[in-house]
């Protein structure tokens, strides 16, 4: 009985020590990735989001883009109303999704929205990421949607992942696809 207990403890320790080191291995999206600033302004009753995101940039990203990989950039916004004796009530839960590709024929980095309606190209990756990282005056809701009394909690998080991959390929790449990373949540209290 004692041997079994020791075996179980040993195995648990091994997993505990081994798993973080495996998860902490260098990934393709390594680099400074954080939300530097975020705030909401109210312009004529419309709440507009302003976010400055520092996206990671390295040679692997550049090389992957030039090889034809499409990167998806998500900006998640979450607004909840604080309730003292119950779970917070959700007000807004939205995601701004954009894609960045490298256009080999024109040698430009193309930034487009999820539907591919809006498109913009940049001669440099830095320029494209700088554009991606600056979200200005993005309307998120009208003031009247904020029912009841505050405070309201606003949380913003940015994410990067590999986009435009088929479901089959995504399933097959389950064990080896490390092209996804999220920033920490950036939260603040919204007061009107």
């Amino acid at each position: 009985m004692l041997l079994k207990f020791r075996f179980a403890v040993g195995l648990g320790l091994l997993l505990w020590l081994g798993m973080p080191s495996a998860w902490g291995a260098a990934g393709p999206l390594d680099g400074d990735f954080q939300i530097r600033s975020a705030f909401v302004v109210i312009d004529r009753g419309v709440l507009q989001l302003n976010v400055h995101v520092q996206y990671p940039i390295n040679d692997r990203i550049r090389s992957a883009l030039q090889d034809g990989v499409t990167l998806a950039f998500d900006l998640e916004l979450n607004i909840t109303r604080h309730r003292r004796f119950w779970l917070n009530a959700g007000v807004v839960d939205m995601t701004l999704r954009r894609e960045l590709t490298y256009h080999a024929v024109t040698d430009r980095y193309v930034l487009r929205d999820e539907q591919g309606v809006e498109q913009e190209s940049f001669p440099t990756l830095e320029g494209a990421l700088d554009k991606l990282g600056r979200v200005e005056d993005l309307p998120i809701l009208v003031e009247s949607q904020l029912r009841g009394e505050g405070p309201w909690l606003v949380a913003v998080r940015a994410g990067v992942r590999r986009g435009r991959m088929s479901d089959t390929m995504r399933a097959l790449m389950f064990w080896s696809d490390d092209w996804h990373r999220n920033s920490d949540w950036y939260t603040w209290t919204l007061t009107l």
Partner: protein
Amino acid sequence: MDTHALRLFGVRALTAVAVAAGVAALVLLAASVENSTLFSHWQPWILLLNICGVMALMALLARKFWQLYRDFRDHKPGSRLTVRTVLMFGGLVIAPLIIVYLFSLDFINRGIDSWFRVEIKQGLNDALVLSRSALDLRLREQTRRTEIFARSLRELRGPELLQRLDEERRATEAKEIIVYDASGRASALSSDTPMAQQPAPAPPDVALQVAAGRTYVSLNPLPDGQYTIATAAPIADAVSARATRRYVLIDYEVPQELSALAEAVQHTSSQYGDLSTVREPLKNTFRLTLTLVVLLTLLAAIYGAIFSAQRLTRPVQDLIAGTRAVGKGDFGTRLPLPSRDEMGFLVHSFNDMTKRLRRASEEAKRSRQAVERERERLSVILSRLSTGVIVTDRELRLHSANQSAATILGGDFGNPEAGQNLAQLAGGSMRFATFLDELRGRLKSGLDEWREQLTLPGESGERVLLWACTPLPDEREHGGVVIVFDDITALLAAQRDAAWGEVARRLAHEIKNPLTPIQLSAERLRRKLLGGMNAEDAQLLERATHTIVQQVDAMKQMVNAFSEYARAPAMRLAHFSLNGLVTEVAELYRLQDPDAEIRLDLDPTLPEIEADRGRVRQLLANLITNGIEALAGVADGCVELSTRQQRAEGAIAAVICVRDNGPGFRKEILGRVFDPYVTGKPRGTGLGLAIVKRIVEEHGGRIEAENRPEGGAKILVLLPVSDQDRALFAGGERRVELRRERA
């Protein structure tokens, strides 16, 4: 909850965890592949669930292996068969699995590499270069055109400028031509689409490029797959030909055919490049998946082998355990039926066998108990029999005997073992030795059935037995015989006593009556005739009548003695000290015969006895007289009287022992010394010891006579000290009486 239930719960919980983790991971994976965001969110959980499932499976397998190892180490029945089965299964599975695994690995490497062939990559790169070349040519052409156009604008302002822009736009099929002034504002615009709004400011990089005096050119892809070429050139001053910081921006549209071709190349190249980036991860994924599948297959095969082997050997283990239980005598073992196959038939046969064995065992047990009961009953009967019983064979090996046999023969059976030779049980008893000699002789002569009287000499006199021999019914060929014998010595003595009693009564009746007339007649004759006779005749008459009277007195005494012997006892019981009476009688004889040496050895702890004092006095007097008379002519003759207390048959008896150092009893009369008219003395009447024996019997006691080894006679008298002891003594003697009756 006991340990077994806890283990069972653990195994079931682990199995449930493994299955639940696998199902949950599968569901999450299926749901997440349709949504890339969900996939990103759930991937760690899917990974964790898979790890949990694998860990649970590994734990189950490890437990199975440990169980197998423990069973093998402890030599548990069936463990070797299980190990052999597992090794065989493993061996059968591992070899093909490894071959398939290696081939599959090679196939994956080659197959995936073939998807990304160098030729395709090179072709796509060439197409890309070609597209770029074609577009570069267009770019250069549009750039030169823009530069020329910009030079043509250096003197134009206002409407002329607008007219020139429109002409140029129509001539070149440009989408839009805008002239920016030094402040970066659009000062003139010509567009192929009606625009109401103010044109957007020029991109910063355009202004920077132009401000540096260089021509700006850019090829821009559009969302609809079209390309535009944006060119900008500074407009020189009309006088100095220096740049005025004004510049013209022309947006040309690439021809649709060229755009479509370039876009197709771009799309294909991008897709191919995208796929190329996953080549190595894809190979790794396939390798990992293949390895996991092979590993899982191997583990599942081993687990299945262990499970199947244990399932197969479990009935065997049950059979072994059942066989051991049957070997230990537990016939109630019932094994569970595993299935309806051959093993099930075997288990069913085993159960049937144990059922029959149990019935047979119970039957045998009942028979054994019945035999045992009969044996115990027979043993009780034999032990209570006053008849001696000995079962033996022709080699005189004892089969069984009762205590009465030992008592009668004077041997010591103790707890005789079956098969022990009878000679070893004789214990120096002369009677037993003579008995065995007689028995051996008869059996050797071929006799196995008789019924006779047998006289056995002994230290305390002869014993007469009535013995019979019968062969055992089932052991005639083995020579087994049963010998039954009774001691009829007392019976014969009683018969003699009865005969002598009758003789005495007749003598008293027939002889005593005429004696008195004879004596009276003789005295009358003497009185009548004595006076008329002469002296000589008178003297003769006197002597004759005197002799008659004297002899008649003698005859009267003899008749009185007979009368005393035959007289029915009239006991007058009283408590008195036996030691005192012995001393008193001894003193009387010392006074009568000073030469007589009488020694006393009396037990001071002897209690008073309840007896007829007069008869006990007569008993002592007869014994002392007998002893003194036996010492006639013996130098240093001595009669010793001793008393002691003895517990016999549960009763307390006073023992009187009278010994002398005379010649002892003659051997021929030793067995009959207590019979009337049996005497070893020339002048004895032969009634002294007979009367002693009668008195002892009247008091419920026992008397024995024997010769002392050192010479002389020894008479031992046992008298119960009280009526209660007499009753107990009589109970102990009852078996002797029964023996007498049977005889």
